[in-house]
């Protein structure tokens, strides 16, 4: 079945260091991938999305590239900021109006 795997439950980084959050997926449907960010006590919000193979997508300093050959959609940022501390979800559109989310990665940025 369709699934999304986020291998890290918690990532702790020092401010200024690069961010990379992993996301791999499995699907039989055509691929549409998303990253959502959820700050403490807030609702999840779309950070970026892609359906195009090997094309870099950027938003708010974050970027991700969908690689269908490796079924991956990793989230990256060149320099972490304290305000990036949040819960990040990778999600997949599975068709028939449905989505599946990964377990989430909590990013904690420290000074």
């Amino acid at each position, binding site marked *: 079945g369709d699934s999304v795997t986020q291998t890290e439950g918690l990532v702790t980084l020092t401010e200024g260091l690069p961010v990379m959050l992993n996301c791999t997926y499995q699907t039989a449907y055509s691929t549409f991938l998303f990253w*959502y960010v959820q700050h403490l006590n807030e*609702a*999840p919000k779309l950070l970026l999305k892609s359906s195009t193979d090997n094309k870099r997508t950027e938003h708010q300093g974050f970027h991700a590239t969908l690689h269908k050959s490796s079924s991956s959609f990793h989230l990256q940022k060149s320099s972490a900021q304290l305000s990036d501390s949040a819960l990040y979800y990778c999600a997949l559109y599975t068709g028939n109006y449905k989505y599946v*989310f990964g377990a989430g990665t909590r990013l904690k940025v420290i000074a």
Partner: protein
Amino acid sequence: EAAVTQSPRNKVAVTGGKVTLSCNQTNNHNNMYWYRQDTGHGLRLIHYSYGAGSTEKGDIPDGYKASRPSQENFSLILELATPSQTSVYFCASGDAGLGASYEQYFGPGTRLTVL
């Protein structure tokens, strides 16, 4: 700005009681969703709807019912609440299909505690 509201924001219920969580969207989206959020499990789909009058089972529908009486409103009903249903519940709306953004807009969440 797309808007999804939920009520109540916090709810304490007793085991065996009936709980209704309400969601309203002003985005005119066809699709609406109910998720629960639990640490280690992420967001899991309970029920969804692709239009007024329709409800579909998601990935974890057991113990839950849903109702979509109108384009704007989507309710989640726990007929016999159990402590295992203690969680944070999120409603979302969005559109999928030709020309759609596929983005989901989430409500602020409802924290439900079943004692």
